[in-house]
């Protein structure tokens, strides 16, 4: 293979190779796939609100290419471009060369000063290793939030003092603070026989939106019969995006081992979860194990059996419908980017709901445009997050929908927050709606 590298820039420190839709490439080849045609610009939420090349996918690819070629020297002065990427994948979806901008941006972030050094991240990772302690700490924080202490802290400027000013807007998005977490509730789901599905409790569902998990399990039981709870670890996305790849690999390995144990007795069972972000990430586990042939094989086996809840519900499954519930209700679908772009699940919700709701299913303009939630984006880039949310709420308000369906935790929080501050619509997970309409 031709060697175009600039030997002074060691960029092989992170992922050795990227798995792209056009084959496996090292990062320089992957980023050189971008011919600067510019067709991605009008699909990128940050470009749409900012209208600058420095906020475009093309710009992000080009700055990383310049870093690799030594034409741009300090990634830390490129934060405006690198850190503002939502990682939504909308660009790759329309890119003719299928340039993997998301992964390219993450590789650049891993070079930044301060990456993997955040105190909050270190605390979270430590606590995730001590599940019971994590539960206690989180319940305590939720309690403080419920008694309005976070409100007080904001008024006193405490968040600014602590060095996390974005939390002053961020805490308002915490609309659900359950007293009991999902994993304690569904612990019993372990001794079933003839397993068809393995439920993966994503952190968002587990700790925040427990109703979503209950709905998922209800629906899975109705359609597929018996299943188990994986009693899983965090999928590792937080570490992949904000922390260290090794942390992510550790969590992934644990999940793979848990799956393999269940698979041994139930070879046909699929893994299913209800947060599109986590599920999309789990489908890419093999990316992290390119250096380890054995783990790579196991990761491929794992990933190929991961499903998003929105793809396991098919039109033929909806037989007996609760017409009272859907009567006169206008519904619109926000296609969460991690389902639409990364998993290529573009019409699953529509295919199921169109025959049921008919003209009451209103198509949303820019339905697959990111809502601006994007994990911790709302905290790291509050201004862009707000601008992008505003665009999404405008599009929802045009539909005049009573109910807005999403398929990711981030969207539930973000659009839920938008629903309180601008156009009011009942925001729920797609599977909650399915649960309600299935008799």
């Amino acid at each position, binding site marked *: 293979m031709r060697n175009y590298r600039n030997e002074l820039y060691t960029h092989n420190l992170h992922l050795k190779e990227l798995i792209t839709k*056009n084959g496996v490439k090292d990062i320089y*080849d992957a980023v*050189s796939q971008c*011919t*600067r045609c510019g067709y991605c610009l*009008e699909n990128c939420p940050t470009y749409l609100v900012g*209208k600058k090349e*420095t906020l475009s996918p093309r710009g992000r690819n080009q700055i990383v290419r310049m870093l690799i070629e030594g*034409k741009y020297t300090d990634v830390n*002065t490129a934060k405006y471009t690198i850190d503002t990427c939502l990682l939504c994948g909308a660009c790759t979806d329309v890119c003719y060369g299928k340039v993997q901008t998301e992964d390219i941006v993450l590789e650049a972030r891993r070079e930044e000063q301060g990456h993997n050094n955040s105190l909050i991240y270190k605390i979270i990772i430590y606590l995730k290793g001590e599940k019971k302690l994590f539960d206690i700490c989180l319940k305590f924080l939720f309690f403080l939030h419920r008694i309005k202490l976070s409100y007080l802290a904001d008024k006193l400027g405490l968040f600014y003092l602590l060095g996390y000013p974005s939390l002053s807007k961020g805490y308002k998005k915490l609309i659900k603070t359950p007293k009991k977490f999902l994993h304690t509730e569904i612990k019993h789901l372990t001794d079933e026989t003839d397993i068809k599905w393995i439920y993966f409790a994503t952190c968002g569902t587990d700790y925040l939106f427990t109703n979503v998990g209950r709905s998922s399990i209800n629906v899975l039981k109705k359609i597929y019969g018996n299943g188990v709870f994986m009693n899983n670890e965090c999928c590792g996305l937080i570490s992949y995006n904000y922390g260290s790849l090794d942390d992510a690999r550790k969590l992934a390995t644990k999940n793979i081992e848990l799956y393999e144990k269940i698979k041994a007795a139930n070879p046909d069972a699929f893994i299913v979860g209800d947060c599109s972000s986590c599920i999309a990430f789990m489908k890419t586990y093999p990316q992290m194990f390119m250096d380890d042939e054995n783990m790579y094989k196991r990761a491929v086996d794992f990933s190929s059996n991961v499903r998003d809840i929105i793809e396991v519900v098919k039109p033929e499954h909806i037989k007996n419908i609760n017409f009272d519930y859907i009567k006169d209700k206008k519904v619109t679908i926000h296609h969460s980017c991690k389902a639409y772009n990364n998993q290529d699940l573009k019409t699953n919700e529509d295919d199921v709901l169109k025959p049921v709701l008919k003209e009451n299913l209103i198509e949303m303009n820019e339905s697959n445009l990111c809502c601006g939630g994007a994990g911790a984006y709302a905290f790291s880039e509050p201004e862009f997050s707000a601008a992008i949310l505003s665009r999404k709420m405008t599009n929802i308000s045009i539909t005049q929908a009573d109910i807005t369906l999403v398929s990711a935790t981030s969207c539930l929080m973000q659009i839920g927050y938008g629903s309180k501050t601008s156009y009011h619509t009942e925001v729920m997970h797609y599977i909650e709606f399915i649960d309600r309409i299935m008799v």
Partner: protein
Amino acid sequence: MLEEEEKKLFSITQEIGEVVGVENISIDDLNRSLYSYDASMIRAKPCGVIHIKKASDIQPVLKILYNHSVSFTPRLAGTNLSGGATNQKGGFVINLSALNRIIQIDTTNNIAVVEPGVVNIKLQEELEKFGYFYPPDPSSQKVSTIGGNIGENAGGPQCLKYGVTSNNVVKLDVILPDGTEATYSIEDYGPDIMSLFIASEGTLGIVKKAYLKILPIPKYFLTIYSEFKSLDDAMQAVADIIKQGIVPKSLEALDRLAIELTKTKDIEISDETQAVLITEIDSDDKREIDKEQNEILKIFNNNSAFNIKFSDDKKESEKLWKLRKETYPSLAKIANNILVEDGCVPRSELVNTVKKIKKIIDDHRLKANLVFHAGDGNIHPQIVFDERDVKETNRIRRVAKDILKEYIYSGGTISAEHGVGVEKRAFMLWQYDKKTIDLFRRIKKAIDKKEISNPYKKIPITNDLKKLKRKEFEISDNVKAMIEEIKTRHSKKIRSLICGKQTSIKTLPADHSILSSAPIQKILDFDRENLTITVESGIEIKKLKDFLINEEFYISLPDDNGTVGGMIAEKRFVGIRDLILSMDLILSDGSFIRLGGKNIKDTSGYDITKLMIGSLGTLGFITSATFKISKKIPDNKFTKPANITNYTSIGIRIKNAFDRENLFNAFLTEKVYGRYEI
């Protein structure tokens, strides 16, 4: 940077910051780096980037830059393929993308008023709600903007029937490089200055607002997909369709190479297929569509077409278009870079030029596609390479040059839609002679005195390439005699009264000698296949129409006792600008200026052909013009221009660029250009 230069930059930055806000002017390395490229291979770092958030900020910003003599490059989506959106002089890039308001859609007067940053497809989507469309539909329309389309005179598959951008703009509000605001429209009295800005590639200032022609979407359309056993059969079918007088909405062709690289398991093509044609027709009259459908199918059968499919349903039609739309994406999957060459030849030269280009590609054993807008002669070879491999890139550059030469040899142009920019700047000297290039330079200097508007673009900066032997019309003996006469008059500073049959001249002004087009009345070329006719300007309109009717053709000109030259120079009806493809003229110093040819699309030089319309003999002596003709009886609806007097300083400067000594129709100079000093 030297300390002085740094100080200058900082003070300019401060001044501009006071206008646009400090957050909207960036001189940091990140902005400079990410505004150093566009979609071409050209790289050039600007000294800074100015982000315009309000249209009213453009003028004060340009005034500041003009005062400090700092260059600027207007930029929108940056999808330019010839380096046009980069600043070659280390000046500023002005980002206008935020100006994306559609200001008005007027379906009574068929006009849409937009800011330059409106994305083409977004305009189409809004217009569709009213049952309207805006004809120019370049392949980049999902990202490219109206401002960019104007700068490059964008075309698109629909331009065969509906014209390019230049035929679909009626008025422009512009900010000139020195910061003055001006408005130019096709209804102005005098020469059509507005048309200079279209295809100007940002070298003549910035468009602040554009008034576009919009049309109701025809009721009926039909897409026809057909395969052919040979490229010759396909091209013969194209020629037969045009000869029949059918002007399809689009006529796209792919060769075997393109088919090989594009077909997937979804799109099954037999090994026999050497070419594919995708034809689309539209009309408000169902009978017309049915008639054309039958005629086209007959022609296809006569040319051994097979696997013919057609549809009048939007979704099904998209499937038929899929093969064509996937040509570029299918290459993008396997390549790092794709060179999309762009040139136009007269339709009659299409087959030969395609064969020659194929040979060049084969000889170099390159991986490439050949896609062409068969209806208008625009050929796009798409060649795969990796720009990181310097040897390969240089080889591709050499191949591109050879291909460009083929366009020129066939009487074509080196830029049909992608612009000249930086990439093809030097090759303008292959296509145009030095006198014409000098005229382009003078026009540029007339409008951009300090040469700060997108410098080093479009016009060659050296003179060292020689004009190639291009297929062009012979200059007739009478025209040669005319050139000599004009040269003699020039040396003696004799003023001329330019006229045809003198039908519009009431009294002969003092100190003017007559210069009539009566001696030049030849029909230089009558091309049935290309649907064009080239005539010398002295021919009477009646004679021209009679000649064509005899041949069963029509030309959309009103009945008139005068000459063709007179009708053009007086702009007797607005629509004449959509009929004329090119012109030849003689300047007052005897320079013979040859513009264009028989090409349907040409964005290489400034649009002097359109500028001459309405110029009333004050800029040059038109010796010949190439018109579009048709097999269909024209509707004979001719709108007289409003002839609004619009005096700006640009007018007299353009007059000066053409006729420095004021020798042509000097008695009209003040009436046409107002009282201005140079």
